[in-house]
């Protein structure tokens, strides 16, 4: 079973490496969205510090959304998804592998990049550190929950916009605890409780989401 998850992760990573442009453009989207905010609200450091957690997290949600439609669409188009659905293992495990691979090329780079962008917002080093960890802990949940939406909208007209409509409301708890943790650090309260809850959401998201996703994929293939 682990062998299968490993096989799908390594295949998806290899594919992602052959299409690095997709990863890079999602990252630049993240950078641009975050950089637009100071231009919109003004450069006062006090205000920017206050806005930073929310802005960075919302931008991270949007950047994740960008790569979600392709999570299953490519496999669906070239017939690989049928083969995956016919593999002699639970489809949920394959989805789990794809979710992990998706996180490695979307969530992880965002988490690594976020501290640099946090500097633009005059965040303290403590807050930068927490920001990066919240993204590290929270973005797997985004990939997991997003997979459900990606599977439900597979092959549906207007899929991309519809996907955002379905998935963004479900992202709200992750956003609240993720941005809340950074906010709590900025205002001097501990971020511990936020981080634990965020971790719980991620565990739930990553381990439960593959099953409804698998069911949705079978419906899409029928």
């Amino acid at each position, binding site marked *: 079973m682990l062998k299968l998850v490993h096989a799908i992760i390594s295949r998806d990573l*290899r*594919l992602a490496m052959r299409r690095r442009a997709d990863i890079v453009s999602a990252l630049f989207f993240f950078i641009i969205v975050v950089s637009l905010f100071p231009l919109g609200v003004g450069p006062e450091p006090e205000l920017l510090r206050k806005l930073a957690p929310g802005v960075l997290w919302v931008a991270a949600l949007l950047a994740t959304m960008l790569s979600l439609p392709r999570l299953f669409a490519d496999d669906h188009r*070239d*017939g690989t998804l049928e083969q995956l659905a*016919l593999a*002699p293992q639970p489809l949920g495990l394959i989805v789990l592998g794809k979710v992990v691979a998706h996180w490695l090329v979307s969530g992880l780079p965002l988490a690594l990049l976020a501290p640099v962008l946090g500097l633009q917002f005059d965040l303290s080093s403590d807050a930068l550190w927490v920001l990066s960890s919240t993204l590290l802990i929270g973005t797997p949940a985004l990939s997991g929950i997003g997979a459900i939406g990606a599977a439900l909208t597979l092959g549906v007209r207007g899929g991309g916009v519809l996907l955002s409509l379905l998935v963004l409301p479900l992202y709200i708890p992750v956003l609240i605890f993720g941005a809340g943790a950074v906010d709590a650090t900025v205002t001097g309260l501990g971020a511990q409780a936020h981080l634990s809850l965020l971790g719980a959401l991620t565990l739930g998201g990553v381990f439960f989401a593959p099953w409804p996703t698998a069911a949705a994929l079978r419906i899409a293939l*029928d």
Partner: protein
Amino acid sequence: MLEVSRLECVRGERSLFAGVGFRLDGGEMLYLQGRNGSGKTSLLRILCGLAQPAAGEIRWRGTTIDTLGEDYRRELCYLGHHNAIKEELTPLENLLASARLADEALDEGAALEALEMVGLAGREDLACRYLSQGQKRRVALARLVNERRALWILDEPYVALDAAAIELVAGLLGAHLQRGGLVVLTTHQAVDVAAGTVRQLRLG
């Protein structure tokens, strides 16, 4: 081994076919025929368990395929209308990846041999997007060289292939039937397969 009874398929509001039934044993091959849109591909997908029939049931070794689930899929090899190969990967990577995902042991040497056999020697390390349609189909068919699962379900295996490749596939099918395997396939080309019993079923 494979028993199909009173199968009905509804697409949208139209009934594509109803009351389809047949029985296939080891060493037998079923040619599925019918004009375009008669539901050949739908029937194959139902046989795989990818699509649900509106009525009827499919039994494999006496048990319905829904009950068998993974045990059925472990004995099934499906080659669909699409090649199921990744354009970004090379033929060799494609072959190895699909074997690993299907939980089959396939080492690099055997994969290279299979590619050579389908006439892709020297193209193993070229990304598939640079291959022609026929060559892509050959990559997909290379899976069959080392395939030992009992039931092969093939959707238009001969499409886009030249005469030499068609002969090669017919040879693979013959060997599979000789081993006691089962084949269900659709095709518009009548191709002679050396071994096994050939049955026919016409839809629509």
